């Protein structure tokens, strides 16, 4: 059966130690000023009592990922097991996918000039290792695995406790990241939001017709750039790699 990878974040176990953030930075040589994962601390007052909740976050590897739709070159793609990945040989760095993500998970890496984001540590999990954040998590708050495998820890946990996802009426794109909050409501701060000019494949507000032409021109330029980069890079790819069907 095809795998369906999911990440579980138990916010009761999370202690905001940022181990996940630093481990990820070290594992993937993330430049300063950027991060593939994070922990949001939300505090407020309820019935005269302070309250704090903690939310580890990263790319949600959505079932219906708008970043893939927005990507003009096909660099953003979804693997059969659910991982939303990035082919940096094709990526032209156009950044169209960045505002497409309502979880703000994607960013342009200034060192490589391609898009970076959480990949669920695809190179590690393909070798049977855990994602770096999961392995290092001090509270064992992050749990990762295949929810289609009934024997997996994630499957058992999903059955045992009540897990929620970060979805709203506006943004409901099948994230594969689950949260346990012991019944507490999700605060607004952690919910996904559409950007003002979010790309979703639906019709957008175009301010003026000249804008439309400029956009068309930009589209071709981006496509052109993406394709040229693609061709250039791919010329180095050996033919043996082309034997697999996509």
């Amino acid at each position, binding site marked *: 059966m095809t795998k369906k990878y999911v990440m579980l974040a138990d916010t009761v176990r999370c202690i905001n130690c940022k181990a996940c953030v630093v481990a990820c930075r070290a594992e993937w*040589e993330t*430049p*300063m*000023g950027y991060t593939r994962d994070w922990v949001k601390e939300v505090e407020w007052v309820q019935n005269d009592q302070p309250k704090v909740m903690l939310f580890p976050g990263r790319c949600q590897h959505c079932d219906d990922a708008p970043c893939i739709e927005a990507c003009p070159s096909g660099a953003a793609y979804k693997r059969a097991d659910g991982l939303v990945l990035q082919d940096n040989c094709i990526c032209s760095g156009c950044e169209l996918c960045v505002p497409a993500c309502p979880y703000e998970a994607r960013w342009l890496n*200034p*060192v490589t000039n391609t898009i970076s984001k959480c990949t669920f540590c695809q190179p590690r999990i393909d070798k049977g290792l855990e994602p770096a954040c999961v392995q290092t998590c001090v509270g064992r708050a992050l749990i990762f695995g295949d929810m289609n495998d009934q024997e997996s820890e994630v499957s058992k946990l999903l059955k045992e406790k009540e897990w929620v996802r970060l979805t709203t009426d506006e943004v409901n794109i099948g994230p594969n990241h689950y949260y346990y909050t012991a019944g507490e409501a999700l605060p607004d701060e952690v919910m996904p939001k559409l950007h003002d000019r979010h790309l979703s494949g639906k019709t957008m507000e175009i301010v003026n017709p000249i804008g439309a032409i400029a956009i068309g021109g930009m589209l071709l330029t981006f496509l052109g750039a993406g394709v040229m980069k693609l061709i250039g890079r791919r010329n180095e790819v050996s033919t043996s790699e082309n034997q697999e069907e996509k």
Partner: protein
Amino acid sequence: MILFTCYSKNLFKINDLYLIGTNSIRILSELIKKVNRQPQLYLLASGLFNQPTPARIENLRSLLNELLQTIPKNAPELPILMALKPQLNYKEDLETEYSRLFILAFPNKPVQPFASYWLESDQSLMGNSTLEIKKMMAEQGIEVAENSGLLPDHIVSELEFLAYLASQDDEKARQTQQQLLEQHCARWMPQFIAELKQANPILYYQLAADFLINLTGF
């Protein structure tokens, strides 16, 4: 001619593997006496940014005098070399200034003489650029000596490496030299020099900075 060819091939290779940071400038400069002055100029630059011990200052003075003997009157670096000459006299002030500028600055920040500091987003050492230089050196049969206290991308190492490359006759060395200068040094040495000047150095180091600019064109 044969002698020259042999000599130039074995230039700097005191052992099978040449080690940066081990041999004194005096030894190195003796080896390259017979080639064009580029290697000597790089060697001088490398020494100017290394710890100014009495022995090193003396060797630099000898090297400079040698250069001045054979240098043409219209050489662009001549004025700076002339200005440097009286500076190459040891005094302890040089050492404290060296420490202040490059090692344990007080009260300002040190002007870090490592490429990696300037090129890595977190200003760390031993970054990707360090490994690149290490590989480049290894391809030429060169390694930084373990007990030298240097890293491959320390300015002293890079300049000594350039001195080596400039002394070699083959196309590969020339290409490597160009690549090193244009694709690596150009990305950090200008900022290094600018910040060095901002740190208000004594004349010796002002001149060292100017000399480096003159030598590299940055």
